């Protein structure tokens, strides 16, 4: 395959699309801040290194001029509303930049009473995709550098936002690597799958970056930090790590919005989103539930139907 063919088409229309989105975000942010419609805008600022961006909370129209959107804008900013920047919401309405996948998290947080719709102003981005973890960012967004989640994204176009920015460029069809990997694992025997995950989990050092970036891990006391009783070993040993990742996947089942931030930030490259994807698949199949960009009153594990499947119960 020649190098040109490998570059996906978003790369070729790169500059104008990203510039247009950036401009639209700046215009709106400046307007919102100068009209005092919001007290802050949670968005992205350029990073020092090439191809990086960092989350930022801007409070003045001048700062808002720095906001950007590029394929480096990987973060799901909604976590700042429940965790790091929870306090800001008390000061007034906050605007937040959200890609489709982030929006599902926002909707989930609304369903779980963590964020009120009226407290935020959502600027949705028609998103063509972002960089994957550890990818080469020098050549723009290419098939090689695009995040795995973006390859099979179904939420390029946000819904139910206060303002939608950007016009989606034509998107190429990419092979669904994650779905393939999921299928590959499903086809293994239980022993083989156990061996696979054992290797993955034994790399874990419990830096808890997965937990800390997850918009849904907003518990004040994580089960894994609790020691009376100790439900999970807190030491980073294979046994405790396995239990930790199983429990986390279970706690996210029916809540996860699929932003795959946990997987992106894992310094040990553990494919955590596979667990979340697998649970989402199961809940879709069993209860026809899917994470959505609009808030839902109850998740699949907080409601039931009398005729739910019970073929697994004797």
């Amino acid at each position, binding site marked *: 395959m020649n190098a040109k063919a490998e570059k996906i088409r978003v790369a070729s229309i790169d500059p104008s699309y990203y510039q247009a989105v950036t401009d639209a975000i700046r215009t709106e942010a400046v307007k919102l801040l100068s009209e005092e419609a919001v007290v802050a805008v949670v968005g992205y600022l350029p990073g020092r290194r090439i191809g990086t961006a960092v989350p930022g909370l801007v409070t003045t129209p001048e700062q808002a001029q720095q906001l950007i959107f590029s394929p480096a804008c990987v973060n799901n900013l909604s976590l700042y509303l429940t965790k790091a920047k929870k306090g800001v919401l008390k000061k007034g309405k906050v605007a937040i930049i959200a890609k489709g996948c982030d929006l599902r998290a926002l909707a989930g947080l609304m369903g779980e009473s963590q964020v009120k719709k009226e407290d935020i102003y959502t600027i949705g981005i028609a998103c063509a995709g972002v960089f994957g973890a550890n990818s080469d960012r020098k050549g723009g967004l290419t098939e090689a550098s695009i995040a795995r989640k973006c390859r099979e994204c179904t939420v390029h176009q946000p819904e139910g936002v206060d303002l939608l920015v950007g016009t989606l460029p034509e998107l190429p069809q990419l092979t669904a690597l994650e779905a393939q990997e999921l299928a590959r694992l499903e086809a293994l025997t239980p022993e083989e799958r156990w061996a696979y995950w054992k290797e993955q989990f034994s*790399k874990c050092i419990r830096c*808890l970056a997965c937990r800390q970036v997850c918009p849904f891990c907003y518990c004040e006391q994580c089960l894994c930090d609790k020691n009376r009783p100790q439900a999970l070993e807190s030491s980073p040993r294979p046994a405790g790590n396995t239990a930790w990742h199983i429990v986390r996947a279970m706690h996210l089942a029916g809540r996860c919005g699929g932003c795959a931030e946990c997987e992106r930030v894992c310094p040990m490259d553990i494919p955590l989103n596979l667990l979340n994807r697998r649970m989402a698949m199961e809940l879709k199949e069993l209860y026809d539930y899917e994470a959505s960009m609009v808030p839902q009153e109850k998740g699949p594990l907080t409601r039931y139907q009398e005729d739910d499947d019970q073929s697994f119960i004797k």
Partner: protein
Amino acid sequence: MSLLITETNLRSLVDALVKGATLVVGPKHSGSVVLYQPLAAGSDLTLDELPRRSAKELYFPVCEDILTFKRENGKLEVRDIDRSRFPETVLIGAPPCDAGSPSILDAVFSWDYNDEFFLERRRKSTIVGIACTKGDDACFCTAVGLAPDAKAGSDLFLTPLLGGSFRCEPVTEKGQALIDKHAGLFSEGAAGEPVAFADQSTGKLDLPKIKEWLNGHFEDPLWESIADICVGCAACAFICPACHCFDINDEGNPDNGTRRKHWDACGFSKFTNHASGHNPRDIQNKRYRNRIMHKFKYYDDKFGKTLCTGCGRCIRACPVGIDIAEILDTINKKAQQG
């Protein structure tokens, strides 16, 4: 004339050491990541990528048992770990930013209390460092006083040469002993041109000035703005070659269990949380301040060393892109301005 070793012989050296019941630890592929791991053979050794985790875990493991206890017949029996049986170890293939860290940490582990777990492992290990050729825009070792070819901390130092072999320079007696024991694998010859070092985008920092600024700015708006986006994970600390905070906890039950020591990090909200529920570092910016202060002021105050090797791992790994090199640069500028 220099002492040289070919890549083949370097791998043979690993094989020979392994056969001699020495634990050889070096960069090795594990799935998509490279980690310092015990090598089963020379062929495991991989030198083309900086390992994700630093080499500190050879001396200061992610998690280790420090004692076990069991209540029998109403009496609690405590069993300690026999450290005299720790194996002889060779750490091989560590770039200066990793090879240099254990010697920085020696100070703290042999200060008011001698951590025999750390020290015994240090005594029994030899570090074969290697000059770095793979830096990127996150690296800043030169800014903190190291260099891609710094030999500090290494017992034996290798420099990759164009053409595939390495120039060998014994730094300590341990290093010399290693050469002597396996003399057949080394040869004398004319050293060719070394492989070029990677450029580093961060310029030199004035560490004493920075420290001076830190001395006077325990309270400063800077901390707030830095920690603004920190999510409070431990990715930076856990992969850092110099961070060495740990926690001790008992697992099992009061009648039968193990006491374990494992990594802790100032990023966690439970860090320095008191039993009363009070936490002197109750918010993220105090915790992040501690990270900078500890590395560039407290450690220097106590031990005269900087607790950072500029490996850039924390910059690459930070989920939200916090860039310590940029922060240091900012402080540097503030310090220069006075």
